[in-house]
């Protein structure tokens, strides 16, 4: 009994010394929180995951056919600014796909597309150095660096658009990227379906958020034909991107999500409403 007491005292002593030595402490966190209070405590900003986050989850299920997901496109159909912003997001997301496929030539081409499209949006100053870094890193097969630069491009352009009071274009860029990422991952899931893999489509709040962003856009932007199409697509996706009553997403839902996202991405690339 005495030994046991000594043992616990020693454990406590070691723990206390560790805390003092590292300066690291941990206050007890509540084991549960009342989710009904969440709306009042909520921070408005929503960060949309980069495609790499979703692809990383999928890759842990085994090797995937990323080569087969690359677009053979010049991305040269530039229309009105909302379409260009959506296209910019699509191209950056395509960059993430090219990195997954470790296709250096494709990554270089995407670096050049990104530069060209950023000029059309008037944000090339925020993009040039990152695009050049991507092209350089692709020569060294430095995939980690390329992923980082793709994320930086998104953030730089987002900040620049906010500065230019083009918030809705920043949001459309994010939506374009999310659509292209979802198209690629549903294509992979279609070919090699598993309920574990399909779990990554459980994104109800994210799709609500993207839809809500378009809803809040000025009439001038949300009246654009392409934006209307995207909004319709997001409305169709809303009931699909959530687990069913059995806690899973079935293959037919994955097929449907792929059809909607690929149709939208193709229309953005072709600049056809």
């Amino acid at each position, binding site marked *: 009994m005495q030994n046991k007491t000594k043992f616990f005292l020693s454990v406590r002593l070691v723990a206390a010394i560790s805390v003092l030595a*590292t*300066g*690291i*402490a*941990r*206050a007890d*966190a*509540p*084991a*549960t*929180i*009342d*989710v009904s209070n*969440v709306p009042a*405590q*909520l*921070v408005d*900003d*929503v*960060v*949309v*995951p*980069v495609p*790499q*986050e*979703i692809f*990383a*989850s999928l890759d*842990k*299920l085994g090797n995937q056919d990323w080569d087969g997901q690359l677009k053979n496109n010049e991305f040269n159909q530039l229309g009105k600014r909302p379409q260009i912003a959506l296209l910019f997001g699509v191209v950056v997301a395509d960059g993430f796909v090219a990195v997954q496929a470790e296709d250096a030539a494709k990554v270089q081409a995407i670096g050049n597309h990104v530069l060209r499209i950023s000029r059309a949006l008037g944000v090339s100053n*925020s993009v040039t*150095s990152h695009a050049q870094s991507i092209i350089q890193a692709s020569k060294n097969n430095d995939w*980690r660096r390329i*992923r*980082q630069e793709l*994320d*930086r491009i*998104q*953030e*730089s352009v*987002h*900040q620049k658009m906010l500065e230019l009071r083009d918030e809705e274009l920043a949001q459309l860029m994010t939506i374009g990227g999310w659509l292209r990422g979802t198209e690629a991952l549903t294509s992979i899931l279609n070919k090699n379906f598993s309920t*574990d893999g399909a*779990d*990554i*489509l*459980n*994104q*109800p*709040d*994210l799709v609500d958020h993207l839809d809500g962003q378009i809803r809040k856009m000025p009439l001038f932007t949300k009246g654009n034909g392409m934006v209307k199409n995207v909004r319709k697509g997001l409305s169709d996706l809303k009931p699909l991107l959530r*687990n069913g009553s059995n806690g899973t997403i079935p293959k037919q839902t994955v097929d449907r999500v792929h059809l909607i996202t690929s149709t939208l991405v193709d229309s953005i690339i072709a600049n056809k409403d």
Partner: protein
Amino acid sequence: MKASQNLTFIQRGLAAVLAFCLVTSPAVAMTDDARSYAIEAAIPWLDLKKDPFSLRETWWSHDSKVKEPKIIKHQLFSRNEYWFWVACDNPDAKVSIHVYDEKGKLVDAEAFEKDHTAGVRVVPKKTGTYLIRVVVESSPEKKDNHWSVVYGFK
């Protein structure tokens, strides 16, 4: 002994370069101190030498009163591993960060609090929306404590 000293030196060098790149990148031109502190808090946990976490360029910033919980809703994906780091711009403040699932159950894998920073690691079992709860535990300022959250994943 010498090898471990060298390793520490290399790790510190890498960390300094990373911090410099992140803090000086154009996206961060309008950065705030809280974000810089959060990135500094992140560096020791990024596992730069082995299997590094990817630190996202985007971040959350907010002001809150002492003991006033703030919740960030965020999409997490199963099979990934995440770290979230928070820092207050006031070095005399104490802050905590924890992650809950959509039903309000704590899902931290590990967490720490150090000076005016804190971090939490999460390995979500299911893909979905999670709730990141930030609390300024104490501060000389009773209101308007500015904090930022950054995150990494692998």
